[in-house]
């Protein structure tokens, strides 16, 4: 089971991750962070397939992924 | 006689624009003017400001360390420029975004709920016009005719904007005048 952790203050609200997620489970929030950006949040953690595309996409390394137990990698990165 | 003001805020708030309009209006009034922007490192975002000087004689230093007026559109700007304001100067605070009081006791403080007013007028992008008006109302640095004519030109392309911004400007002027005129620069 994979879990996405978004650092609200590293996020610049570029929305690239939202577009990158094949499951469409990421969304932009309505709060603004210290830098004054609306930051991204995980809308439906449960549907995450652990593809890491959002992590790979984020220009600001604001997204971490943790998995509990082992998990299958769709592609090597 | 010289008027000078530092106008500061976020990049998107149009502070450079109202600074230019102020300088243009000063020209129309037949006075000497200079407009000096902050040009920081070639980097994105952050705050920006400009210094406008309007004088009867040729402008000496375009750099003003202790301005006769400060128009702060956001908190960082207030923090940065309030201490530099001349004693007896005018401090205009965009109270829509800034929720703290002025610390100086030796200046005229004018709170301008620029954003609210603009929103009330159904012209959300007009907050900077309200602020500009407030400064002019409080200091009469330039003539109302000059600045009104200028608004006409600036938005000539979109007549609807002309009206909207004139209204915003006039509301600002009113706010600026409302107040005790003590020690205005």
């Amino acid at each position, binding site marked *: 089971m994979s879990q996405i952790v978004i650092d609200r203050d590293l996020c610049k609200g570029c929305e690239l991750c939202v577009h990158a997620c094949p499951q469409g489970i990421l969304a932009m929030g309505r709060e603004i962070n210290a830098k004054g950006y609306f930051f991204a949040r995980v809308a439906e953690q449960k549907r995450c397939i652990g593809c890491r595309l959002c992590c790979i996409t984020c220009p600001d390394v604001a997204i971490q992924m943790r998995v509990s137990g082992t998990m299958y990698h769709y592609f090597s990165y | 006689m010289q008027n000078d003001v530092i106008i500061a805020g976020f990049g998107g708030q149009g502070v450079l624009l109202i600074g230019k309009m102020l300088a243009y209006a000063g020209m129309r009034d037949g006075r*000497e*003017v*200079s407009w*000096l922007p902050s*040009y920081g490192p070639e980097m994105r975002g952050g705050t920006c400001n400009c210094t406008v000087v309007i004088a009867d004689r040729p402008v*000496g230093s375009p*750099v003003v360390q202790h301005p006769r007026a400060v128009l702060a559109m956001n908190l960082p700007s207030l923090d940065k420029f309030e201490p530099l304001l001349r004693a007896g100067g005018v401090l205009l605070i965009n109270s829509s975004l800034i929720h703290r009081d002025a610390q100086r006791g030796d200046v005229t403080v004018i709170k301008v709920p620029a954003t609210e007013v603009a929103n009330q007028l159904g012209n959300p992008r007009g907050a900077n016009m309200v602020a500009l008006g407030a400064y002019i109302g409080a200091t009469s640095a330039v003539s109302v005719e000059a600045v009104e004519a200028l608004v006409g030109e600036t938005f000539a392309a979109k007549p609807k904007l002309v009206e909207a911004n004139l209204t915003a400007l006039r509301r600002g002027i009113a706010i600026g005048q409302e107040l005790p005129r003590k020690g205005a620069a």
Partner: protein
Amino acid sequence: MAKKLMKGCEAIGEAAIQAGCRLFFGYPITPQNEIPEYMSHRLPQVGGTFVQAESEVAASNMLYGAGGSGERVFTSSSSPGISLMMEAVSYMAGSELPVVIVNIMRAGPGLGGILPSQADYFQATKGGGHGDYRCLVLAPWSVQEAADLVQDAFDLADYYRNPVLVLGDGLIGQMMEPVEFKSGRTPCKPLAPKSWAATGCDGSRPTNIVNSLFLDPEKLEQHNVKLKAKYDAMVRDEVRVASYFDDADYDMLVVAYGTVARVCSTAIEDLREQGLRVALIRPITLFPFPYAQVRAAAERARSVLVVELSCGQMIEDVQLALEGTRPIHFYGRQGGMLASPDEVAEKLRSLVATREVRHA
């Protein structure tokens, strides 16, 4: 034309066009990007040509080619970019080409910063390139003066067949002030046809060769002597300087150029209201430097304060002018920090203590 509120960079570009310049070769660099940007949209409108060069080295050599073709041409850059032009500037001086170069100085050394500075004074006035040569150097203190001097620069370049450098700082480039371009302006120098230019030869004259190579040292020495004579003529005829607050007697003289001189003038105004007797002299040509005028003005004072946005460069020319006849003090800011009127006033006040400046 009516007065217009313009950024210094734009006024400089427009001035070149008003002076009949239809060619710009340059490379972007802050804080003067508005010059190439302005030229890139204005030149095509007037049938001119804008070329973004691959580098300042290339831009300066394009200048060489265009200047050698007899056309009015200019380039602009800022400190690091100007350093890259030093070989070509030496070539253009050696080949006697009339070109105009604008340096909107930023803080150095190295990449430094992009804020205003005056630390390229030595490079501009003593020659940053190799060999004995000089550029005529003009230093405006307002947007209007920048516009006027740029137009004169083209006339001076043509008259002397020599590169002319306009030395401004970030302030001049970025600030907006009212500018007026007088239509039907007359050149500040008589202009001869450029019969020396390399524009094709039908045999009716010997071929024109744009060149700075002289394999025979005697010929090269003659050439050096000829160039020296030209520089001496500039020294004799082209000195420009402005004095302020010198109507009444004064105890202290401030020497400054460019926008810093305006800061000083404001400082001095305040001080005079407080009864201090201070005057200001502002070199407008940095080469030729107004040695005699500065000397004369200094001799009316008890001491002199030089204010620069550098660790002290023009001060050497002031020392050469004064030959120890008056004490010389210095106030400088570096790294893009600006001297404010209050700082300068404070410095002058502190000198009162030294008893060199007397209260009226």
